[in-house]
């Protein structure tokens, strides 16, 4: 077909363009992803028995866990929006996405210095390391699928990078779901185990990006 004919045909195309801009679609995806992770956490892992009590008591170590996971998501969102909009320079520096991890590391260092070693031992060595490392990615899996579908509707042009940040988003959301269940409240534990679990997802996302995000 001649290009001029193609242009004419495209102009006659009656179908409406897809309704949502990248920003709107992403916000919807975030809500769906959170809903999926939270329901999966409730059904599969069951929330920690003292969840309401600690939330009620404004126990700041528990709230910090949620704040950490939310901030991972919030920091990665504008980057994913920019990556799925062609020609848009990524406005937010990658360092912003790393900021939550930096802060949680500082909090962990403070905890190491302050808490008595017996208490620290109870909080970290006896903690559920192995469970955290595979349950966060599983909880984040629906989120990952939702974001991948969402990104494919847009037009990401750097698939590895987009995949990595989608993994980061999904990891953060999976971690939020896990925090509902997890009763290890040490920042040292969060700084290491949560970070590792989220990084796993980001790495897998970066590797799979070109395969699963490719659009034609």
């Amino acid at each position, binding site marked *: *077909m001649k*290009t*001029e004919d*193609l*242009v*004419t045909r*495209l*102009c006659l*195309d009656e179908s409406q*363009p*897809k*309704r*949502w*801009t*990248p920003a709107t679609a992403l916000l919807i995806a975030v809500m769906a992803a959170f809903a999926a992770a939270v329901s999966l956490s409730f059904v599969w892992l069951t929330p920690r028995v003292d969840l309401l009590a600690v939330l009620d008591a404004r126990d700041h170590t528990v709230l910090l866990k949620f704040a950490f996971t939310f901030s991972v998501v919030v920091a990665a969102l504008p980057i994913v929006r920019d990556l*799925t*909009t*062609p*020609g*848009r320079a990524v406005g937010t520096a990658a360092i912003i996405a790393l900021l939550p991890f930096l802060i949680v590391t500082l909090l962990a260092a403070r905890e190491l210095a302050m808490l008595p070693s017996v208490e620290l031992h109870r909080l970290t060595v006896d903690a559920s390391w192995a469970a955290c490392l595979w349950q966060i990615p599983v909880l984040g899996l629906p989120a990952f699928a939702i974001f991948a579908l969402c990104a494919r509707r*847009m*037009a990401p*042009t750097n698939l590895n990078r987009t995949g990595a940040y989608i993994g980061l988003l999904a990891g953060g959301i999976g971690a939020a779901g896990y925090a509902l269940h997890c009763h290890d409240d040490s920042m040292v534990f969060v700084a290491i185990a949560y970070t590792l679990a989220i990084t796993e997802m980001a790495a897998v996302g970066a590797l799979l990006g070109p395969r699963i995000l*490719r659009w*034609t």
Partner: protein
Amino acid sequence: MARSNEDHLKQLLLRGLDGDRAAYHAFLSGLTDLLRGYVRRQLVRLGRGDSEAEDIVQEVLVAIHERRHTYAREVPVTAWAHAIARYKLIDFLRATTATRRFVSLEDAADCVGDDAARLEVAFVVRRLLSVLPERFRRPIELTRLYGLSVTETAARTGMSEAAVKVNIHRGIKALFRLVGGDQ
């Protein structure tokens, strides 16, 4: 890409997105020229023939049309289109390089040389043809550039076979007059 181009295309696209068909047509046509230039330059730079250029341009146009919801008003249209074109070009090259045999550097250099000459010839011929009236130009293009037979050309253009032959003959004569040759 030039500034005036950007503003002009942006106007057309925005009007097109609001439902102005003519503006959208003008946008896609204007973009086609830019895309063609970009894709050809990239292919030649990579030492590949520009024969695939038109296919890629068409793929990019379809992608731009289908992904027009990703256009954000604060992004330059040319940057947006360029990002999509680059993605499609890389995608195309990835899909096709695996099947291409290894070419030594000397051979590749020959190819690039040939290609530049061929490009120039193709460019000159197209320029020349573009000044001919439609009834001469189409039959010449179809038979001499695309290799169709007189019968096929007649079917495509709706002329009789005799008319096709006569028009080719007249068109070529006109071309010779244009370049100052005598025949």
